[in-house]
């Protein structure tokens, strides 16, 4: 259960370039729900994810994960509750470490790190099994440096790393946007598979309305730092892109001007 109440985030507060990104945003996500998030550039999608993970400091409001208030916790202190995959395929993995070392790092997410051997022997089989599931042949390349992999392969491994340890919420921040269409489809299907199989609670930001409707159980749209609509259930199942546009026009009394949301 994720509970966000009246969240306020400012960038450069008090300066002439002040930007009020999230304006009293409230959102509640039940356990096991897969929510897709859309919105035009600057709507606050990434900032919402960064606020949940602790990468961005909030100026007001409350964030609870499970029964715990987390707004005072730093990013690394929330790692046991929050797992994430970044938009940039290079951002989610360490290129200087081997595939096995990257996975070993993720195996200790939210746990203490001691002076014991990082590549524990009991990990070996688990890594091979998990990598074979990807079907990319990476299970034979455990000792290869991460930097040798393509963007799509790295994003698939990032996703795998995020799911190695239990979490309260999985944050996917346009994680297929930087990939070619075929790889993007593969990574998206993989995400869906992980989320369904393990009944994960997930928040996926996407730039494509079609993607937002095709995946997940619930879709929210952000606009100027607030949730403009929130649809789920049978109502959502029937919806097409054009219905989303009408819904937006009705609620905001204006037309959506960002073409990329339609074309994606």
């Amino acid at each position, binding site marked *: 259960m994720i509970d966000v109440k009246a969240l306020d985030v400012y960038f450069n507060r008090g300066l002439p370039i002040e930007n009020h990104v999230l304006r009293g945003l409230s959102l509640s996500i039940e356990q096991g729900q897969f929510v897709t998030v859309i919105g035009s550039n600057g709507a606050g999608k990434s900032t919402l994810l960064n606020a949940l993970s602790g990468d961005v400091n909030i100026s007001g409001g409350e964030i609870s994960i499970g029964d715990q208030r987390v707004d005072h916790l730093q990013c690394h202190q929330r790692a046991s509750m929050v797992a994430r995959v970044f938009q940039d395929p290079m951002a989610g993995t360490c290129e200087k470490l081997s595939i096995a070392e990257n996975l070993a790092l993720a195996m200790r997410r939210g746990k203490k790190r001691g*002076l014991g051997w*990082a590549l524990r022997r009991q990990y070996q089989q688990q890594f091979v099994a998990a990598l074979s599931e990807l079907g990319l042949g990476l299970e034979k390349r455990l000792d290869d440096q991460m930097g040798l992999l393509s963007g799509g392969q790295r994003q698939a491994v990032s996703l795998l790393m995020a799911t190695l340890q239990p979490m309260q919420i999985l944050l996917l921040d346009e994680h297929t946007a930087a990939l070619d269409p075929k790889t993007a489809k593969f990574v998206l299907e993989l995400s869906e598979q992980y989320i369904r199989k393990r009944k994960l609670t997930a928040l996926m930001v996407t730039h494509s309305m079609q993607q937002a409707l095709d995946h997940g159980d619930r879709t929210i749209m952000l606009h100027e730092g607030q949730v403009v609509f929130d649809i789920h259930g049978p109502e959502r199942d029937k919806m097409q892109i054009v219905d989303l546009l009408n819904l937006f026009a009705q609620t905001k009394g204006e037309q959506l001007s960002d073409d990329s949301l339609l074309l994606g």
Partner: protein
Amino acid sequence: MGALETGLIFGLVALGVYISFRILDFPDLTVDGSFPLGAGVAAVAIVSGVDPWIATFMATFAGALAGALTAWLNVKLGIMNLLASILVMIALYSINLRIMGKPNIALLGETTVISAVENGPIAYYFAIPMLLAVIVAVVMVLVALLLQSEFGLSLRATGSNQRMARSNGVNTGLATILGMALANALVGLAGALFAQSQGSADITMGVGVIVIGLAAVIGGEALLSTRTVVLAVIAAVVGAVLYRLAIAFALNADVIGLKAQDLNLVTALLVTIAIVLPRFKKQRSPKSKAV
């Protein structure tokens, strides 16, 4: 003191520089201050009757504090990493003078780690390099093991991708502070051993240590593979030893006609060659030929 001994001692500096520059991606000039700090602390302790091994340990610890201070300025106060290290380096000049009380402390006639083996059953020109080689080898093994531990992995992730490290639960600020402490602890240890081998600690002995450490790391990388941390650790120490031997050769070969005052010029030349060499290696490799 022979080139081999100096090379081995600077192998420790090279390991420190490898940890700060390569593992943590932290350009650290603290080294020029933590080297004489180690020398000064060890010298003062030895002169006042402390056991030389304990004195050497104290010097190592002092180096760690210096490194932690640099990282703290960067992590907690947000001062740019290079500038933070310069500030600590400058501050250490005064601190070292305070600790030593005078610009130079002679250790002649004192019992040091080195003098203990000098008068042993084995000839001193074997015994001293062997002692240093053992110390350096032990440190190499410990550093290589540490870098492959769970903690070591979090250090390497911090230097390579901070955001990713944080989202996997690594406290990157703490990792930077501990890693920098480790790096400068090794430099402090090197300073302490250097002072004991040459028989004195001098306030100016830190000048240019960072350049030598960097030359060793870059030179080692140019000559050997650094694909794994074990290889990188070996490369740093080999780089340091070869660097000192190359310098000694250049200055001793009468044919070349170089003198001691040319040392810094030779250093600059060697570093330049070490930086350019890998590029030539790449051009000669079959892969790029095919293109």
